[in-house]
């Protein structure tokens, strides 16, 4: 275990505290703003109980399945080298950054009642597949999050020095022993945090859960919040539900942190890990896993691609280029902001005694409702400035904040690893401050930073976000353009816009992710 030789430096404290203040403002201020304007008396919304139950159930199940399937997938990606491996690892980022409605239509093209699986079953006389219900909700959430889980686990594995695999092979460890000594500690460190993040992401799912859920039985808390804000204008109920969601998030984070145990594997000379555990059985399992995962993830993406290309055939619709420019600008600004925040907080978390409590608090951002944040900020801001004037900065800030918990989960373990492996040496050399970051930390955590930045950029790009409340008349982002096209019957044009949106998000993700990994593993 790396000793905390140095007291927390002033700079770390200052930046960390400033970043935490922003997080606190975004988690708490909107709820308080709603409460300040609320008129009480409507009482507790009893109809919310079934929604809370369903939310917990579907999110828990989705997280468990995603991570359970991600374990063999990450293992296979870790120990196999094959043509297209790099591309596959990058493509794992793709489903995660799809706007929900695009993902739903892509999934239905494969799994829907007239999707290709149903058509095949029909030809065999087995009738169409009916995925609507809990199955559909979980299917969609696994599609979104399995790749994310795999990437997070893969990162845990990549933190194991190459020498340890070599040693395991030299000692002739049986697969069971290898699993106990290497794999279990890796999973013990990475799986709880993957479970937690996915649980929180699925918890705030709304449009997907409803569209594939088959009816009001599949209502989530987020739908109840939307209903309270949109139709009932019951700010008190919306605030109550937002608090319930935060409380669940806090409980889940506390629980997961208690379970997670990070093992330090010690330093490495660097260099790629080679794996000697290649019996024919494991080779076949890995090939099957990789093949199945590729099909599961790629087929819906192909459907989106095909629809998008035919939607773009008549040419670019009006407003597309401008919307694209605005979306990219917001995404880049948001990424820069998110990286600054994430690094500031990660340093503080890594060096503070209250690290995991701080991190649990930041993770609460995942449990916030975008509608509550949007409405709350709107209430707070409008007395002072026109919301139009701040539309773009606020959208960038909120997008950055929503990516922050994920980024922190990715960056913090890497920082911890650097401190454990090189901290004492750097301290001894008196390497501190900016030069320590530049010479030691940056080169070491580059892959993680690249992955995290890629996620932030892509998430910002694809998110409809708070811009709907703040957008000035002539400003639209790509997701907004897409929804407007759908609202005007232009489903084909919307599919084209969706393709441009997804391709641009993926390009941003790929540039950052690849840029980070270039020098790394």
């Amino acid at each position, binding site marked *: 275990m790396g000793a905390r030789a140095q007291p927390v430096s002033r700079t770390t404290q200052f930046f960390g505290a400033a970043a935490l203040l922003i997080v606190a403002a975004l988690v708490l201020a909107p709820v308080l703003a709603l409460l300040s304007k609320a008129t009480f008396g409507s009482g507790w919304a009893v109809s919310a109980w079934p929604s809370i139950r369903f939310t917990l159930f579907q999110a828990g199940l989705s997280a468990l399945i995603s991570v359970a399937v991600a374990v063999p997938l990450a293992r296979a990606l870790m120990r196999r080298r094959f043509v297209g491996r790099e591309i596959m690892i990058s493509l794992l980022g793709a489903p995660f950054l799809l706007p929900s409605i695009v993902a739903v239509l892509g999934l239905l093209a494969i799994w829907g009642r*007239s999707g290709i699986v149903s058509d095949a079953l029909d030809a065999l006389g087995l009738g169409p597949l009916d995925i609507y219900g809990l199955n559909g909700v979980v299917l969609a959430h696994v599609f979104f999050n399995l790749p994310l889980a795999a990437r997070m686990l893969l990162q845990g594995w990549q933190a194991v020095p190459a020498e340890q695999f070599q040693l395991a092979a030299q000692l002739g460890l049986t697969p069971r022993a290898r699993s106990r000594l290497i794999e279990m500690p890796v999973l013990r460190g990475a799986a709880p945090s993957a479970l937690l993040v996915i649980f929180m992401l699925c918890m705030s799912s709304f449009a997907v859960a409803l569209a594939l859920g088959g009816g009001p039985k599949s209502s989530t808390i987020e739908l109840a919040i939307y*209903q309270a804000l949109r139709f*009932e204008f019951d700010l008190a109920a919306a605030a109550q539900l937002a608090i319930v969601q935060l409380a669940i998030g806090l409980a889940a984070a506390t629980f997961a942190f208690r379970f997670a145990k990070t093992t330090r594997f010690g330093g490495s000379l660097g260099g790629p890990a080679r794996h000697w555990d290649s019996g024919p059985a494991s080779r076949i399992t890995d090939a099957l896993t990789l093949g199945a995962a590729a099909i599961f993830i790629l087929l819906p993406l192909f459907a989106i691609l095909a629809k998008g290309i035919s939607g773009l055939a008549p040419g670019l619709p009006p407003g597309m280029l401008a919307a694209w420019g605005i979306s990219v600008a917001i995404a880049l600004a948001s990424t820069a902001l998110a990286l600054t925040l994430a690094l500031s907080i990660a340093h503080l978390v890594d060096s503070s005694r209250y690290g995991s409590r701080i991190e649990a608090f930041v993770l609460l951002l995942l449990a916030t409702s975008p509608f509550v944040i949007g409405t709350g900020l709107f209430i707070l801001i409008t007395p002072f400035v026109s919301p139009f004037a701040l539309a773009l900065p606020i959208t960038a800030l909120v997008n950055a904040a929503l990516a922050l918990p994920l980024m922190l989960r990715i960056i913090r373990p890497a920082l911890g690893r650097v401190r454990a492996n090189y901290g004492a040496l750097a301290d001894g050399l008196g390497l501190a401050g900016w030069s320590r970051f530049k010479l030691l930390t940056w080169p070491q955590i580059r892959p993680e930073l690249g992955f995290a930045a890629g996620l932030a950029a892509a998430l910002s790009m694809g998110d409809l976000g708070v811009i*709907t409340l703040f957008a000035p*008349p002539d400003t639209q982002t790509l997701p907004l353009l897409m929804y407007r096209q759908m609202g005007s019957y232009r489903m084909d044009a919307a599919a084209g816009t969706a393709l441009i949106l997804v391709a641009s998000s993926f390009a941003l993700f790929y540039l950052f992710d690849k840029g980070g990994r270039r020098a790394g593993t």
Partner: protein
Amino acid sequence: MKTFLFAAALCLPFGSVIAEEKPTLTVYTYDSFISDWGPGPQIKAAFEADCGCALNFVGAGDGAALLARLRLEGQHTKADIVLGLDNSLMEQARQLELFAPLTQAPEGLELPVSWQDDTFVPYDWGYLAFVYDNTKLSELPSSFETLAASDLTILIQDPRSSTPGLGLALWVNAAYGDKAANIWAGLSDNIVTVTKGWSEAYGMFLAGEADLVLSYTTSPAYHLIAEDDASKSAALFQEGHYLQIEVAAKLAGSKNPALADAFMAFITSDDFQNVIPETNWMYPATGVETPALFGQMIAPQPVSGPLTISDADRKAVVEEWVRALSQ
């Protein structure tokens, strides 16, 4: 009309003397109204041609989101006009007491029902209906009862998040009253899924996920006119159809009251009404001629019952819907 523009012109000097700037009329509306395919751009051009002003459309989600926005902003709203509420939201909107009474009754209204209101001006209307693909479907439902008894699959929207979804719940309630819950129980095995909004359901219908989708009687007109595709039709229901009338109103706190009055009068003018059918895919609120292909649409009767609904009644209908479908 002329007098209104004249009146509007009278108050122009105040703005123009000070800053040589045209006054701006701000109209809050729903998103699809101001999209490049919606009525917004043409209506803006037509109004600005005569008013010596700038017309500024601000999009705010859908009709319900529009109302929520007004409630958030209250007296401080920047809007001069709100355009895009409908009869299911009107009573809630009226209770906000943000609107100014009309200075002149709208002229030339032709609606399927009689209309009398001193605040809201209708600008278009349409009937909800189940739309299907006539190349695939031969057995057609003629009522909610026959639909419930059939094996047909339907896609609907959630009344808790969508205006047409709410319209459907009100439709069944108006037609069946106490027996509405039975109808929903009967329909539950026909419902493939319930979506957040119209776009999701319609997109899934076009992808072939169900036989019918809740939309408008005029939806087939879009496919006919814009895509030259005659494969979509709407099913005629014996109970009568839910009538949606979309309305606009002037804010009492408007800084440009004369200009706002001029716009309210402009709404029932031919220049405004002629734009509606092929951009908003609804029927115009006055007697202007509709495109010939609109003649091929079904012409239902409005379902009996009141046109508007109180807040409490609306909540009760939605709660009954949730209960009936959660069994």
